[in-house]
């Protein structure tokens, strides 16, 4: 219990039950707080509890489930619990990576929301001592026929681009999906990948009584106060009133912060460093102290501020961007300031480490908050809400549209031109994808690949989630997200070694939503166990609700793959006329929950394709083997849109420098019992198209079959500008590659060529 008298800061409001509720703290939690403090909280303390016990910081509804994820493996250097996870790459090198959501801020202000999302995830990575070398993102919007959705897509894209381009970190991949369920609540998830030497790993653990806390970077303003609690609420009319909480990103300062932080870490002058993310100074200092089992004391009056007359409450909860908190011994302060000044950044001593395990805030000589620190961070109440499946979903899963009567070429063309499946070039050509001169495979492929300069090591990364599968079956859908991301990096020749995840859901207090969450977590666990890809961290974003209801369950997986020899990386495009096309994996013609049903038949129904985890692991193994042994000139995995989409994309080529190639494929006798549309558009997992020179075919087929997978030569790569022609049992389906590519490229720019109003 605290002994100090708490002096309310002049002008602070009186604590009433109403005020406590406004802070998102219910009666039960209010009781706990009183118990912990042995008295009523001060206004500042109320703000602190409200932030740290928000869903966003406290993981109230998710922590118990997250603990079940597999997190171990010989490659794991840092699992969950730090700012980013770290995996071993060999040769002394390691990769730090993490994904995070910025959904709510982006819904309110797409440009700044997305930009600051990128800023935040960069900081999580360089905080670990890693230099950011790649960015990815995963975006969800409502359909583009609505002006608001076009405005959001344009703003988010520009925001991500302006931030990442300015800091000089290439964007190497990501995904964009359009779906009704995101109309009121877009998703913006950003992932960052950094590299470091294993011996240089920095952890955000405060230690050493008497050591000092130093804030580095931007000044603290009134922006984003209570962003953490805001992210833990549903969007509503009232959100409108919270608009001034928008934070503005400053990538120029961030770039300096990257350089200064990495130099501080390698200088040996600091003990710990953490970014000030959600809940700003409060969470960064409290978390570092809790990890080190020490107390902290902050003098809020010493924090450099941007505006006059800021109160301790505002200073502690501000989410101004581009700030870091550093712990260091007192005699290192001068050296630290020398470094930060050289990078033209401000630094100020704002507090110290204490031995009493308290989280204490002063304003000069007055104590304005004093909370037992460990309780604040670790004893956030945890909940396991009710869970039940929505019977309507169960019914939709049993549903099936009537059989397709139309033309297969029309369906193929229409699907290829559906924004969700079409080229995302309009988006990723606004992102610098080649800065750092290390991008071996750029956006538009299965996954991105970068090399570590001066080594042979390559890192592949992908983000994936098919939320239509999850809407219909969250368990199978989550498994599918993991295996798809693994397939994507393996298609580049990289061995999947670990994941981060961003779990985007509606309100956990709704049983239908919580059911989705539980099943999705179980799916991730099972798939990660099978693929030996531990979970090293992630982020949960609940309350993605809008007046039209919860978003589709969207647990985005961020997969990391390792290429021991990056020169063996394989691209997705057919390379040379005459190469043989091999279909790897078993085709069963599963159309449930497919894009074909959704976009051609207008029916998001049926059971998603079941994931055979053994087959998924074997496919990964086979693809990596093919790449390592030069047995593939291209690999394109099959997912959304099945054979039709993958074949088209493999033929289109990389857009610049190479002209599209035709292909002649015969699928008429690989699987007798299925319909032609099921053959063309079925979405069975664990399949890929591999192209291979005729001379290598036998060895290639053998290597795949040795791993228990089917492999069949189904055709041959054709000439430049030729036709893509597929023989099915019912006849030949054929289209000029150039026509199909035009439809593919034009879908998003075409939909956006309408006026952007806000």
């Amino acid at each position, binding site marked *: 219990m605290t002994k100090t008298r708490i002096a309310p800061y002049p002008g602070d409001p009186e604590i009433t039950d109403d005020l406590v509720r406004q802070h998102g703290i219910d009666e039960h939690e209010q009781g706990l707080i009183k118990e912990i403090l042995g008295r009523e909280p001060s206004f500042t303390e109320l703000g602190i509890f409200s932030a740290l016990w928000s869903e966003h910081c406290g993981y109230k509804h998710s922590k118990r489930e997250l603990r079940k994820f597999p997190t171990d493996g010989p490659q794991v250097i840092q699992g969950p619990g730090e700012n980013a996870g770290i995996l071993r790459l060999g040769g002394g090198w390691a990769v730090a990576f993490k994904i995070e959501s910025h959904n709510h801020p982006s819904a309110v*202000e797409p440009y700044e929301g997305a930009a600051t999302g990128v800023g935040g995830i960069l900081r999580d990575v360089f905080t670990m001592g890693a230099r950011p070398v790649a960015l990815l993102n995963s975006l969800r919007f409502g359909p583009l026929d609505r002006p608001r959705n076009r405005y959001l897509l344009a703003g988010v894209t520009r925001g991500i681009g302006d931030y990442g381009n300015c800091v000089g970190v290439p964007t190497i991949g990501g995904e964009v999906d359009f779906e009704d369920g995101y109309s009121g609540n877009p998703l913006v998830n950003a992932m960052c990948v950094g590299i470091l030497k294993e011996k240089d790993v920095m952890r955000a653990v405060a230690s050493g009584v008497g050591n000092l806390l130093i804030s580095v970077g931007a000044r603290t303003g009134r922006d984003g106060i209570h962003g953490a609690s805001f992210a833990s609420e549903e969007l509503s009319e009232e959100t409108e009133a919270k608009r001034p909480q928008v934070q503005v990103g400053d990538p120029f300062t961030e770039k300096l912060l990257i350089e200064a932080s990495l130099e501080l870490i390698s200088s040996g002058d600091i003990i710990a460093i953490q970014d000030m993310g959600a809940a700003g100074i409060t969470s960064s200092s409290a978390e570092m102290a809790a990890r080190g089992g020490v107390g902290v004391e902050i003098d809020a009056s010493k924090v450099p501020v941007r505006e006059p007359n800021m109160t301790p409450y505002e200073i502690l909860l501000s989410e101004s961007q581009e700030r870091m908190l550093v712990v260091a011994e007192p005699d290192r302060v001068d050296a630290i300031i020398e470094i930060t000044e050289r990078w033209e950044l401000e630094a100020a001593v704002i507090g110290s480490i204490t031995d009493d395990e308290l989280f204490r805030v002063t304003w000069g000589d007055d104590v304005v908050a004093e909370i037992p620190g460990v309780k604040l961070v670790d004893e956030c109440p945890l909940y396991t809400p009710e869970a039940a499946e929505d019977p309507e979903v169960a019914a939709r899963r049993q549903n099936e549209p009537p059989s397709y009567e139309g033309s297969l070429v029309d369906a193929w063309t229409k699907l290829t031109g559906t924004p969700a499946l079409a080229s995302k070039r309009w988006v990723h050509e606004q992102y610098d994808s080649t800065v750092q001169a290390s991008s071996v495979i750029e956006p538009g492929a299965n996954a991105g690949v970068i090399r570590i300069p001066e080594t042979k090591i390559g890192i592949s990364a992908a983000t994936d989630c098919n939320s239509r599968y999850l809407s219909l079956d969250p368990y199978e859908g989550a498994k599918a997200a993991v295996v798809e991301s693994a397939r994507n990096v393996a298609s580049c020749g990289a061995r999947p070694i670990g994941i981060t995840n961003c779990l985007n859901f509606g309100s956990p207090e709704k049983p239908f939503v919580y059911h989705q969450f539980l099943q999705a977590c179980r799916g991730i666990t099972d798939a990660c166990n099978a693929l030996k890809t531990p979970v090293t961290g992630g982020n949960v974003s609940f309350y993605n609700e809008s007046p039209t209801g919860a978003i589709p369950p969207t647990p985005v997986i961020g997969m990391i793959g390792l290429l021991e020899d990056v020169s063996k990386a394989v691209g997705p495009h057919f390379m040379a006329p005459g190469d043989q096309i091999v279909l790897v994996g078993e085709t069963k013609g599963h159309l449930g929950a497919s894009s074909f049903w959704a976009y051609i038949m207008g029916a998001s129904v049926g059971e998603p394709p079941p994931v055979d985890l053994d087959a998924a692991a074997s496919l990964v193994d086979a693809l990596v083997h093919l790449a390592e042994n030069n047995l593939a000139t291209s690999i394109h995995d099959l997912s959304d849109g099945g054979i039709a989409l993958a074949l088209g994309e493999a033929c289109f080529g990389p857009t610049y420098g190479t002209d599209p190639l035709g292909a002649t494929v015969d699928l008429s006798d690989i699987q007798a019992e299925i319909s032609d549309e099921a053959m063309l558009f079925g979405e069975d997992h664990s399949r890929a198209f591999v192209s291979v020179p005729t001379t290598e075919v036998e060895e290639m087929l053998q290597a795949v079959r040795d791993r228990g997978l089917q492999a069949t030569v189904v055709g041959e790569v054709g000439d430049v500008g030729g036709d893509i022609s597929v023989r099915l049992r019912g006849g030949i389906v054929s289209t000029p590659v150039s026509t199909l590519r035009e439809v593919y490229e034009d879908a998003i720019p075409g939909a956006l060529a309408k006026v952007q109003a806000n």
Partner: protein
Amino acid sequence: MPRFHVEIKVMPRAALLDPQGKAVEHALTELEFAGISGMRVGRAIKFELDSADKSSAENKAKAMCDKLLANPVTEDYSIATEEV
């Protein structure tokens, strides 16, 4: 119909960080221009508008700001019109 010059200034909200304003103020100070404070950088938009009268021109300009020219979340605007 009479024609008006319309001039609109769209500025970042006061409470929000304006990194550009900050950078420009800093640069000018380094160039030894003294006594500068509170720099904000926004957009200036100028055009001609045919409208029945000054007040209808102003109303139209306001509607344009609300709909397209200004971001209501992050920016404030001001309008000046003058008959040509």
